[in-house]
């Protein structure tokens, strides 16, 4: 039996919704926003902020939009004079107990209280009494500061910790106007999801020490991306400062936030991912270098690629590629791994293909996976074996070595690494980050960081997720896919094929034709 549709009218707009839909959800379906502060779609409605009150024809009192299920034939007004007055009243109460320190508040610009005041308030303050003094800098977690004056007691933070992480570190204490959010005694909020409290807080009551007082939200460009720090593939926003930074020398990425994807990460990301972003910007390599007779020479891409091609081409021509070794990693995108496989495995017919990835950590049973690399699944789906690097096998009878990524440096101790790499005549490093490998190789090709690339990743569950570059490439760096295509062109293998692959999207389409999984 089909579920009966509920025909209702909201602000003269007829809508048909499923049984059990709340007024708030129904309004959203009708394209109407009903203001709400305590309501969050992930939690059971609490109905405490009272800003979502609406008028239902035939009912004497205003009702909560967040918690009232629609009934067939309901006529709802979200803009009647009574509703507007009640909404204004709630805003006025909230403002009366709010410090209005927006000029120094990190939330300013994306604060719900600001937005709603702008939209439904714009009244003059009538509050003539002394404001409540409350603590403004309370460290409730390693990276979280609670400001009780800004807090509107929506209890989203309390409910997140009781309903989602089930760790229950926060509660409401005291009563009435003295009500306050607090940890239990001095036990801090301590779980791998604490950073979500900052995203959840509709005002600036919970701020992040990593973001606090660093910039204004309106200077930031918001880009959608995928977290690369484990195989879950959580959807994220990367908030990035475009153009010049206001303080020279500071990082350009200011914060990572969760982006809703109910299939992958719900509405949350873990702290490991959220606070891992500085590592994406630190220790970047940005110059193309040839250590010619021990001296660093800055090169152009054209020069260095033709130099490399010259070293590889004769071996290819003579079908004598057994002394070439390559090391890949699964931070490379689907497209890059595909090109890597096409060129080195299929076209050059290499046997010595290794992978060097970050060491596994431990999963937390929720989002964070032990596998700390975003794209291992794709490599497997392409038929690439994730052979770990064995230094003996790597160096034995090897003339040319091409290393993708910085991770090899973490997996072996420097002396044995140097020892074995010294046996190889030509060593090429294609890496986004400096790692120490630079000192062992002859050619250094700077790769773009994952946030500077466009492409797709395949998460642990086999979901292929596309993403676009958040920011321009660092220095002279280029994404590996572009390096690989240019190299293939220089090698003059299958020239017609590679010259068609101009963009990651085209590559993905081509992959789909060749590998069913990516179809």
């Amino acid at each position: 039996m089909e579920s009966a549709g509920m025909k209702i009218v909201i602000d003269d707009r007829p809508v048909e919704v499923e049984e059990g839909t709340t007024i708030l959800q129904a309004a959203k379906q009708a394209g109407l926003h009903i203001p709400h502060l305590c309501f969050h779609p992930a939690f059971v409605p609490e109905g405490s902020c009272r800003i979502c009150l609406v008028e239902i024809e035939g009912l004497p009192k205003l009702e909560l939009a967040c918690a009232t299920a629609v009934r067939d034939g309901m006529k709802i007004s979200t803009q009647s004079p009574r509703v507007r007055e009640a909404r204004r009243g709630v805003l006025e109460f909230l403002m009366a107990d709010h410090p209005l320190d927006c000029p120094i508040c990190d939330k300013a610009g994306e604060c719900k209280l600001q937005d709603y005041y702008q939209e439904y308030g714009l009244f003059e303050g009538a509050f003539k009494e002394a404001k409540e003094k409350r603590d403004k800098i309370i460290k409730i977690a390693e990276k979280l500061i609670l400001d009780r004056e800004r807090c509107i007691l929506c209890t989203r933070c309390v409910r997140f910790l009781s309903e989602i992480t089930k760790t229950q570190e926060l509660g409401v204490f005291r009563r009435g106007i003295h009500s306050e959010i607090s940890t239990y005694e001095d036990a801090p909020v301590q779980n791998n999801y604490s950073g979500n409290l900052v995203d959840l807080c509709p005002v600036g009551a919970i701020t992040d020490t990593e973001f606090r007082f660093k910039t204004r939200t309106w200077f930031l460009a918001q880009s959608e991306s995928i977290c690369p720090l484990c195989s879950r593939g959580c959807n994220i926003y990367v908030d990035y400062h475009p153009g010049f930074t206001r303080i020279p020398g500071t990082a350009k990425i200011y914060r990572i936030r969760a982006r809703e994807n109910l299939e992958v990460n719900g509405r949350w990301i873990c702290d490991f991912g959220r606070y891992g972003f500085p590592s994406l910007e630190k220790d970047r390599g940005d110059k193309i270098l040839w250590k010619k007779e021990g001296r660093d020479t800055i090169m152009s891409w054209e020069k260095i690629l033709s130099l490399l091609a010259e070293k590889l081409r004769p071996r290819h021509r003579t079908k004598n590629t057994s002394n070439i070794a390559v090391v890949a990693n699964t931070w490379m995108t689907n497209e890059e791994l595909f090109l890597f496989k096409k060129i080195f495995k299929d076209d050059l017919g290499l046997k010595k293909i290794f992978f060097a990835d970050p060491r596994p950590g431990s999963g937390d049973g929720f989002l964070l996976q032990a596998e700390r690399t975003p794209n291992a699944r794709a490599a497997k789906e392409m038929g690439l074996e994730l052979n770990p690097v064995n230094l003996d096998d790597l160096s034995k009878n090897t003339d040319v070595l091409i290393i993708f990524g910085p991770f090899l440096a973490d997996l072996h101790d420097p002396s044995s690494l140097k020892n074995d790499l010294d046996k190889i005549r030509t060593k090429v490093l294609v890496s986004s980050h400096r790692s120490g490998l630079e000192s062992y190789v002859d050619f250094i090709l700077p790769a773009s960081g994952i946030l500077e690339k466009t492409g797709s990743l395949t998460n642990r569950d086999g979901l292929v997720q596309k993403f676009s570059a958040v920011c321009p490439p660092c220095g002279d760096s280029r994404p590996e896919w572009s390096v690989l295509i240019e190299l293939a062109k220089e090698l003059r293998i299958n020239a017609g094929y590679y010259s068609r692959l101009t963009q990651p999207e085209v590559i993905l389409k081509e992959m789909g034709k060749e590998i069913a999984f990516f179809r």
Partner: protein
Amino acid sequence: MACSKAWTRHVDEKILTEHFGLANLYEIEAYLERGGYRAVTKALQEMTPDGIMDEVKKAGLRGRGGAGFPAGMKWSFVPKTSDKPKYLCVNADEGEPGTFKDRYILTHNPHLLIEGIIIASFSVGIHAAYVYIRGEYEAVAQRLEQALAQAAQKGYLGKSILETGFDLDVFVHRGAGAYICGEETALLESLEGKRGHPRLKPPFPATVGLFQCPTVINNVETLANIPAIIQKGAPWFLDKGLAKDGGTRIFGVSGPVVRPGIYELPVGTSLREIIYTHAGGLKPGKKLKAVIPGGMSAPILKADEIDIKMDFDSLAGVGSMLGSAAVIVIDEATPILDVLKKVAKFYAHESCGQCTPCRIGTSWIHKIIKRMSAGHGEKGDVDELVRLASNIKGKTLCPMGDAASLPVLSLAQKFKNELESCLKDGSG
């Protein structure tokens, strides 16, 4: 206990306070001698659960806690078949300022309540009842515990009461002093060991109540009326009061009257009669200024408005309410600003803080009144009080928003001139 004579002074036929004059009515022997537990015997041995519920419905017994919801109807909302246990919660959190009736019942006649609990539980199919008693009533709680122990010893509680196979345990839980825990859903939260915050309704406690199970919540006085309804029948009970509001009420009169105290009188007795006939009028030299007729949250009546029947509908008709039937008498010498200050302070102090209008509104109102009271009132302050109270009224999560705003509204509107005379004149 003062005024002990007042209880027996004006009687025709009483339901709840009949034998209050006896020194040891709280002892089960004395209670049995006066015909105690006969209602339980009749109910359990001669009546069916549905029959009891019908009788209570027909008796027109309305909740004595304040809202006046018909008790029999409330019981009938509990699902007949449920795979979960059902609970009875007795609201003995008597926190409404001016109200002290339940305390007298619990102190002097606890077995009457216990009888009511047993009959109600039998009718609804409940095997565990909790009496949530306000924290300040320590001695009262002890007396109730003693009475429960005696009842259990005599076989009126515990396993197979009167060998009928009906089991019932009653537990006493003492509150910790929060007014909000008298609100039924906050009471449930508190009883569950949580912070006393009211719940969103629906779901209503009749289906999802204590520990997520179907629950009946009744006031002490409501349940104490049950034995008489069972013994003497619904028509008799209804006849004591009005057509839709049966029985008697215990009016608790406080203020500068000659005989403050509790008076059990038929529902519908006029307010003037209560004050002037029963409580003896105002003390010599005092003149009536106003009356709060139903506990502090009831809108105030001026001296010329007291010719009114004291029942739910009549008081609602004049914009006030019967509430807990606590009659607070205010004399001419009392400045209304002082009354207002007490009211505002109480609600600001007792707001649980869960929802915005009540948490911030009550505090804001209290701050304005404190300022007025300190002689810094400004022109427009009284209108501001009305505006703020209107923004609380009807917009909060639980009825406390109305409880806090209605008295402020009525005081500010009915005594506007007096209040404005306290303000600085001119521009302010």
